[in-house]
């Protein structure tokens, strides 16, 4: 219906006060358009549903496509239908009530689906914010009475209340969405990237080196220690070409010494209707040593690597307990290291120094690994567990968040 009201008797602006006296301008026409439909409700419904849709897609990205059931597809479609409904309300305000009612149901259905799906979802607080915003938007749409001639005065209290509601919701969305947008977690597991996560809160080792699958022909390598031609397979793909090999050696100066050692893998399965089965191995301390000539203690194929701190030290005197000279410090970065030669050590990654320094003061070092071999390893407070759970409290390992902000990764990262 057309809204011809402009001002009330006392001259206060009303809902039917679109132009406030400037009836022909673009702004006036926009105001008139806004006033004849539940703009706030439709916007909030669209925004909330879009947030839920984003979280649903993020959740499903962790599941191989073939494992998504028709119910899962329906659940994934629902928030996008709600987004369309929000836009539909703007185009056809006379259908607002029906659209609001259906939108309310879809928002609720999506959030319930996220909780009950059995697949872990990161940032549940963000999904809840989407549910709150979408719910408020849907209720405002539901309450919209297109045919009503009752006018509600837009006094200062109404305006302040509406502004507080919008600001509050936007702030809640900004605070909850920031961690999800920053991507500041490890690893980025998806259907094309499986692997088991190896997490170490502290790491010291006699020596650290790596080899990558780089472009140089291994046949031309001098000394046989340059590029390697590797393909590692993983739980859902036979060939991961973005792989590197990390080696930790024990020397006469130091063994490989890890504190708060954790290995876990999420194995999605049809067991009991599609739960996530997790395999977990933990120890408060792990010490790996080797008596072979090369001192190789741990040999691991990885596709992702992150460390919040690593210090390379050069030993002038090889004697246990000597501190060594700090050669390089690596603050947090996440990458698969690689350089042209395909072979390097901890300080070779950034500085290009071809030395074999000790690795000390490693903090929050995480690997996305595919094969791991270790020589003699003593694990204290050992625990091996396999289980399944529906929620994300105990059953599913969350990605490991980083405490510090990332610094720029070296240019030779893959």
């Amino acid at each position, binding site marked *: 219906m057309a809204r011809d009201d402009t001002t009330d008797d006392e001259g206060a602006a009303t*809902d039917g006060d679109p132009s406030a006296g400037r009836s022909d301008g673009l702004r006036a026409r926009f105001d008139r358009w806004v006033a004849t439909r*539940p703009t706030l409700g439709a916007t909030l419904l669209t925004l909330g549903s879009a947030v839920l849709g984003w979280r649903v897609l993020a959740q499903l990205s962790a599941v191989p496509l073939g494992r998504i059931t028709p119910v899962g597809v329906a659940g994934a479609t629902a928030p996008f239908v709600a987004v369309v409904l929000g836009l539909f309300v703007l185009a056809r305000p006379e259908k607002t009530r029906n659209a609001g009612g259906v939108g*309310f149901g879809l928002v609720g259905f999506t959030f*319930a689906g996220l*909780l*009950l799906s059995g697949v872990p979802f990161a940032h549940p607080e963000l999904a809840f914010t989407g549910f709150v915003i979408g*719910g408020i938007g*849907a*209720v*405002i749409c*539901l*309450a*919209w*009475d297109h045919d*009503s001639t009752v*006018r*509600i005065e837009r006094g200062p209290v109404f305006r302040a209340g509406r502004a507080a509601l919008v600001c509050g919701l936007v702030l809640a969305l900004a605070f909850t969405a920031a961690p999800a947008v920053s991507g500041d977690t490890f690893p980025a597991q998806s259907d094309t990237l*499986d*692997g*088991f996560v190896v997490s170490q809160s502290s790491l010291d080792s006699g020596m650290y080196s790596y080899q990558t699958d780089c472009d140089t022909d291994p046949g031309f390598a001098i000394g046989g220690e340059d590029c390697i031609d*590797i*393909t*590692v*397979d*993983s*739980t*859902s*793909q036979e060939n991961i070409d973005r792989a590197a090999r990390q080696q930790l050696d024990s020397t006469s100066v130091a063994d490989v010494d890890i504190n708060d050692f954790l*290995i876990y*893998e999420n*194995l999605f399965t049809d067991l009991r209707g599609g739960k996530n*089965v997790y*395999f977990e191995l933990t120890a408060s301390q792990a010490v790996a040593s080797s008596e072979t000539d*090369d001192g*190789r203690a741990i*040999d691991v*194929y990885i596709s992702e690597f992150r460390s919040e701190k690593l210090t390379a030290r050069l030993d002038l005197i090889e004697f246990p307990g000597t501190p060594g000279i700090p050669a390089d410090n690596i603050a947090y970065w996440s990458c698969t290291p690689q350089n042209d030669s395909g072979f390097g050590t901890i300080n070779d990654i950034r500085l290009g120094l071809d030395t074999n320094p000790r690795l000390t003061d490693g903090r929050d070092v995480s690997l996305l*690994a595919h*094969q*791991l*071999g*270790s*020589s*003699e*390893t*003593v*694990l*204290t*407070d*050992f*625990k*091996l*567990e*396999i*289980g*399944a759970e*529906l*929620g994300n*409290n105990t*059953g599913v390992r969350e990605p490991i968040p980083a405490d510090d902000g990332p610094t720029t990764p070296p240019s030779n990262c893959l």
Partner: protein
Amino acid sequence: MYDTKRLASGVGVLLTLWALVGLLILSTGVGVSIPLSSTGGFNVSADYLTASEATVVPAKTKIVTPSVLFEVERSYIRDLNLQKTLNVSDVPGLTGRLQIQIRSEEATAEGVAFKTDRITAQTATWRGFVLDERTGPKIFDRFKAYAGPNPNQAPNTNDPLQIEGSDPGAIRPSDGDPAFELRGAKITTSTLSADQLQLSDLSLRVRYDFNNDGEFEYGA
């Protein structure tokens, strides 16, 4: 404009829904809780346990709970304690719990296979340990861990790991180093089988806790 009654009832429904979701999350932490760990089974504890070689793969129990299947070639166990606690409250005329314990000071076993969902130990030592992730149609094919020789003789990648298992280890500590060694081990198992088992200084005892207070009033 807005129908205030409808707005009020809508807000009411919304607040109720949020409260329900909040209660659900606060009370359980998850949307739905289904018991997924095996409730049956029995507990094995040992002061010292070795394996000459061992493989570990994901498996499932008969009641379809996830577990890992441990297969051990040869094993030596000191201070073995096998314990099963039964709730007999459902039996007419009985209350409380009944516990059966089998103890042995020394045991050697060959061809041991057991399914477990949890192993803890004060220390665990591996010599030549490999974790290997593979592509496979079932989850049970996708993850393999072994100590000792590579069970499939297959390379992990087309560029084999430099550490690829080890030779079979010793069983008794006096004979050398075992491939896998646990001290202060506690294992929750659902099934346990062995081709050959030798137990020395064996004792069997049954204890009964009639009032379910955690203290076994009857029995040795």
